[in-house]
Structure formats: C-alpha cells, structure tokens
C-alpha cells in the first residue's frame, strides 16, 4: 500500500480549484467528470509534481455529516490539514498580499513555526515550517 492522496472537503470545487492553484500555487494534475457537476480534481506541489496529490472532494455538498463536521472545525478554529513551507513568514506575506485571511499569524510552538489561513471553501489550513 502506498500513500498517494490526501483529500480536502470543499464547498465549491471550481472555486477551490482556482484558490488552490492561482492563490496557493498548486498545479492541477487530474480533472475528470464523475457525475453531474462533480469532478475528480487532484493537485500537486509545483516542486514535487510526482508527489502526493490533494483531492478536492465535494463531500460537504452531498453528505450532511461532512458539512456539520467541517463547520464544527471552523467554529473551533481547527485547521483541516497542514502544508509544509520553507518559510512561514514569507508565505504569510505573499498570501496576505493576495488577500488571503489568516486566523493565526506566524507563531511558534516548540520547534515549529506555523500560521493558519481560511481557504474560502470551508476550511482553515495550517502552514508549518520546522525550525
């Protein structure tokens, strides 16, 4: 068995695709129609294009408990998942300039520097750098 995908639940796949590529800088790898408006969309990091893929899944639109769980995480301020960056400070600056809203500005926790932003599709996402 191998790890090849992590999935992120999103409220609007097209909007998520735009945000995760144009703003965050991921690259679209797969985009296939599934059923109705639903697509199988995966993304990869620019500098690891054969690496792990992110699946933008429309689960909250079709399965109520997923939406409830997503809302509860947001209300508690809990990030859905985390991406690694070389520099939290420079990503914070770059993303802030692009209009991304951060719920937690760059902070440290032990040997980790982190920050948390809103992905505009129903999740908080954490970026982290190992010090």
């Amino acid at each position: 068995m191998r790890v090849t995908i992590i999935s992120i639940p999103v409220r609007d796949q097209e909007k998520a695709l735009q945000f995760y590529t144009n703003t965050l800088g991921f690259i679209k790898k797969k985009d296939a129609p599934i059923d109705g408006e639903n697509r199988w969309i995966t993304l990869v990091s620019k500098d690891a294009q054969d690496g792990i893929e992110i699946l933008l899944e429309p689960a909250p639109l079709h399965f109520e408990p997923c939406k409830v769980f997503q809302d509860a995480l947001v209300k508690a301020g809990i990030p859905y998942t985390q991406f690694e960056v070389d520099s939290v400070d420079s990503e914070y600056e770059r993303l802030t300039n692009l209009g991304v809203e951060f719920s937690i500005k760059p902070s440290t926790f032990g040997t980790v520097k982190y920050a948390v932003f809103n992905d505009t599709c129903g999740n908080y996402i954490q970026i982290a750098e190992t010090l």
Partner: protein
Amino acid sequence: MTFFESEIKRIKESNFSNEKQIETVIGIKNFIDNNYDTKLNLDFLSHTRYVSKYHLLRLFKKYYGLTPRQYLIDTRIEKSKLKLSDGMSVTETCYAVGFESVGSFSTLFKSRTGKTPSKYRKEQLSRSKLNS
C-alpha cells in the same frame, strides 16, 4: 480566542515553554543540516552544545519525534536525491552526502525510496530531458 488557540496556548505553556531547551535542540538540528556531509555522531553533537549525549537524544526525540541519527540519515537521503537528479554519479553522491560505503548507501536508498540510486538517477535524468 477559539478552542484551537486556547488549546495550543495551554499545551505550549505546559509542555513547550523551556526556551533554552528549544534553542539547544534547534541548534543541534541546524548543525546537522549544515554538516550532514561530515562524520557526525552523538558524542560530537553533544560537545557542540555542551549537553550529555543521553540528554541530547531525549531532547531531540521529544521535539522532532525521531533520533538525531534517523534525522541525519533522512537528510542525507534527501540531499542524495537532489545530487542524483543533477546527474552526479552514485559513488560520488554517496561520499558527497557523508556515507562511507556505496553498498550500504544503495541498500538504504532502496529501502527508503523503493528504487536503487542508479535507477532513480536514470529516471530523473530522462525526465529532465523530456521536460527540456
């Protein structure tokens, strides 16, 4: 303050508030990052930071979740991938990242990445040719 923020604050205060310890362990990690290509061992690392080697081992494991030795090996494997992709030979790469035996480097590389260094190098080079 959200639930997440208050929990982070609580855990930080109870378990991760020793600034001097954090500074020491980050210093050790930086030292490995900058000297992974040399002969490094726990005795040497503990001397650079004036802590006993058992204390150092415990600290490193507490903050990074793996031993300094495991971290050193991970770092060397990551660096060797970059060098192989740049076209450096397997033997040169092995020594350039601090390993001392090509045989054990190849075995270790394969167990970590699923392919031998020479196969990895060939794949990366043909890929970069395709892209150029």
